[in-house]
C-alpha cells in the first residue's frame, strides 16, 4: 500500500472496497487519475452530461493546507454552471482593493473595481480545500440524480500501458492491486504527474531560483480585506517581497520571498516562521500558525496535452508561479474545455480530432499564463543588477507618477483565455463588441430575471438578440438550445446591448457548451448555423 504524502482537510472520497477489485478487469469510458480540483471538475461536468466517469485518487480527499486562495470570476462562472458557484461565493472573501508598498512607503493602491452587472465578483479568496469540497458536494448531488460518477479514494495508479483503443491501469489499494481498463484516460494527477512520467513525456520550462515561505495564520486582527504586497519589505528578515491577504475563517495568507540559498528545514521551524510573522504583524498580535510550507516555482508545460487516448489537464499539463493566481484558475478552464469535447467524441457525435483542439486551445491558454506569470516573477525577482535597477526605478516613480503604475507587476491576475485564431472558430460576421468576439467566453449580463450565463446551460446555444432565429433543434444529433432576448424587454441595464450588440441592432450568436463564442452574425440561416456547429465540433477540419 502506498504511504500518504499529505494529511487530509476534508475526506471527500473515503476508501471502500469494490467488487471490481476481485473480478476480471472492468472497462470504463473515462477514467480520471487525480481527484484534485481539476479532476473533480472534469468528472462533474462529464457526469452531468451522462457520460460515465471513474475518478481514482491516491488519497481520500482534499489535502490539508491551502495552496490556491484566489479564484477568478471565470472559474466561479464555470463552477456555477456545474452547480457549485454559489457555495464558493457564500464562503469566500470578496476583495477589490490592493496596496503595493516599497519598503516603508506605499507606492500606490488599486481597485479591481468590478464592472457592474455580473453575477460573480472579479475575485474571491477561498482555501483550495473548500473549493474541492464544494465540487465534491455537487458530485454527490449529481450522483443522487443519477449522474454516472464514481470516486475511489486510496486507489493509486502505479502503472499504465496504452493499447490501440484503450489504456490499462494497475491500481494499488489497501486491499491489494487490481487492473482497470479505460477507453480514455484523463491525467489530472498534478505537477509531478506520475502518468506523465510513466509515459516518459517531458515537461520543459523555467525553474525560478527562489524560495517562498507561505504561512497561513489564524487571527482576529482588524486588518482590512485588501491585498497588501511589499517589495523589499521593511520588516526584519522578511526577504525580497511579502504578501498579506485575507481568507475565510479568519485565516490570513502571508508569503515571504526568501531567495535561493536557504536551509528549508530551519526556515520552516515554528519559531523561525513566527519571528518573521511577528516582525510583520507587530509583537502584540495573537495568532496561530495554521499551515506553513516552502515553495519553489516553475513555469513549464507539456508540448501536447493529448497523447492518443491520454489527455492531460491542470498542473499535470502546465505549471505557473502563483503570482497571478493562474494555476487552478486555468486548470478549471481545461476541464471546461475538455469535458464537452470528450463527451461528444464518446457519444460518437464528433470525430476524435476534436480532442486535438483541446490541446491546441488550452496550450494557447497555458502559454498566455506562463508568459504573464514569468513576467511577474521577473519583476519580483530581478535576474540581473540592471533589471533590479529598472524594477526599483519603476517603484520609485510609481509613488508620485501615475504613468509608472501599470509597469508595477506583483502578479497579473487571471483573466479568461480567448481562443483567437483557433481551428474551431466559425465566422465572425457581426460588427459587434471585441469582448464577445468569436473565441471569447460569454460575458455575463443581468437580465430581467437572473443573469445571462444562468440561462446558457451546458449545451450548444443559439443566442438570438432582437431577431427571430431559424428553428434548429439539433445538427447531426448534437442538441442546440435557443435563447431569444429582446433588449427592450429582457435587458434592464442595457448590458446585453453593450456587451453583445455594440453599435449593431440585432445578432445571432452560436455558443459552445463551454460558453465560448463559436460564431456570430447579424443574421444567419439554418445552413450557416449548421456549418458553424460542424466547424466547432471538428467535423470540417
Amino acid at each position, binding site marked *: 500500500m502506498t504511504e500518504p504524502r499529505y494529511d487530509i482537510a476534508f475526506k471527500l472520497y473515503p476508501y471502500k472496497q469494490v467488487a471490481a477489485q476481485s473480478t476480471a478487469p472492468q472497462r470504463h469510458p473515462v477514467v480520471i487519475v487525480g481527484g484534485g480540483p481539476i479532476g473533480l471538475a472534469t468528472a462533474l461536468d462529464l457526469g452531468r452530461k451522462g457520460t460515465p466517469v471513474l475518478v481514482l485518487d491516491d488519497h481520500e480527499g482534499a489535502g490539508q493546507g491551502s495552496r490556491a486562495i484566489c479564484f477568478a470570476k471565470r472559474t466561479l462562472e464555470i463552477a456555477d454552471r456545474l452547480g457549485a458557484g454559489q457555495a464558493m461565493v457564500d464562503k469566500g472573501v470578496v476583495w477589490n482593493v490592493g496596496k503595493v508598498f516599497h519598503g516603508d512607503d506605499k507606492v500606490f493602491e488599486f481597485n479591481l473595481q468590478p464592472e457592474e452587472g455580473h453575477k460573480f465578483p472579479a475575485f474571491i479568496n477561498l482555501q483550495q480545500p473548500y473549493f474541492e469540497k464544494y465540487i465534491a458536494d455537487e458530485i454527490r448531488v449529481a450522483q443522487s440524480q443519477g449522474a454516472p460518477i464514481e470516486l475511489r479514494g486510496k486507489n493509486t495508479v502505479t502503472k499504465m500501458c496504452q493499447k490501440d483503443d484503450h489504456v490499462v491501469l494497475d491500481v494499488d489499494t489497501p486491499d491489494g492491486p487490481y487492473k482497470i481498463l479505460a477507453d480514455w484516460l484523463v491525467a489530472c494527477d498534478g505537477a509531478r504527474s506520475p502518468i506523465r512520467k510513466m509515459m516518459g513525456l517531458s515537461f520543459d520550462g523555467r525553474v525560478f531560483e527562489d524560495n517562498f515561505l507561505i504561512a497561513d495564520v489564524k487571527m482576529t486582527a482588524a486588518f482590512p480585506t485588501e491585498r497588501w504586497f511589499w517589495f523589499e519589505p521593511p520588516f526584519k528578515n522578511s526577504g525580497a517581497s511579502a504578501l498579506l491577504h485575507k481568507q475565510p475563517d479568519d485565516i490570513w495568507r502571508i508569503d515571504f520571498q526568501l531567495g535561493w540559498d536557504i536551509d528549508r528545514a530551519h526556515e520552516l521551524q515554528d519559531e523561525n516562521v513566527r519571528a518573521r510573522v511577528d516582525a510583520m504583524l507587530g509583537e502584540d498580535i495573537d495568532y496561530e500558525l495554521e499551515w506553513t510550507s516552502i515553495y519553489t516555482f516553475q513555469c513549464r508545460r507539456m508540448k501536447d496535452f493529448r497523447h492518443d487516448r491520454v489527455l492531460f489537464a491542470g498542473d499535470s499539463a502546465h505549471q505557473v508561479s502563483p503570482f497571478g493566481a493562474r494555476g487552478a484558475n486555468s486548470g478549471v478552464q481545461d476541464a471546461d474545455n475538455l469535458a464537452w469535447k470528450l463527451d461528444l467524441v464518446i457519444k460518437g457525435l464528433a470525430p476524435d480530432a476534436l480532442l486535438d483542439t483541446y490541446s491546441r486551445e488550452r496550450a494557447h491558454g497555458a502559454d498566455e499564463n506562463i508568459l504573464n506569470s514569468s513576467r511577474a516573477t521577473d519583476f519580483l525577482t530581478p535576474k540581473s543588477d540592471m533589471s533590479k*535597477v*529598472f524594477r*526599483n*526605478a519603476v517603484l520609485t*516613480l510609481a509613488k508620485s507618477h501615475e*504613468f*509608472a503604475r501599470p509597469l508595477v507587476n506583483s502578479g497579473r491576475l487571471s483573466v479568461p483565455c480567448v481562443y483567437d485564431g483557433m481551428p474551431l472558430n466559425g465566422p465572425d460576421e457581426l460588427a459587434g463588441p471585441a469582448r464577445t468576439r468569436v473565441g471569447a467566453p460569454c460575458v455575463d449580463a443581468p437580465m430581467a430575471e437572473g443573469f445571462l450565463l444562468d440561462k446558457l446551460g451546458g449545451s450548444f446555444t443559439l443566442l438570438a438578440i432582437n431577431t427571430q432565429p431559424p428553428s434548429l433543434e439539433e445538427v447531426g444529433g448534437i442538441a442546440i438550445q435557443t435563447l431569444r432576448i429582446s433588449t427592450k424587454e429582457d435587458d434592464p441595464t442595457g448590458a446585453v446591448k453593450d456587451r453583445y450588440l455594440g453599435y449593431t441592432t440585432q445578432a445571432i450568436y452560436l455558443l459552445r457548451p463551454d460558453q465560448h463564442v463559436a460564431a456570430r452574425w447579424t443574421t444567419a440561416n439554418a445552413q450557416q448555423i449548421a456549418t458553424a456547429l460542424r466547424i466547432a465540433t471538428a467535423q470540417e477540419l
Partner: protein
Amino acid sequence: MSLNLDPNITDPDGFYDELLDAHQDLSKADSDALNARLILILANHIGDRETLRDALRVAKAP
C-alpha cells in the same frame, strides 16, 4: 521607421550639459538609478511601441 534619428534637440550643447549635470556627484548606483528613471519617463512620453522597439534596436547596434 517612425523613430526620428535626425538632429531634433534644440541647443544640443545646453542639453548635454544638463544631462551631465544631473549625474554630477552621484555614486555609480545613484547614476544608474537616475538613468533608469529617465529612460522610463522618456519611454512613456513616446508611448508608441514600434518607435520604442526601433530605439532599442538602434541602441543595441549603433
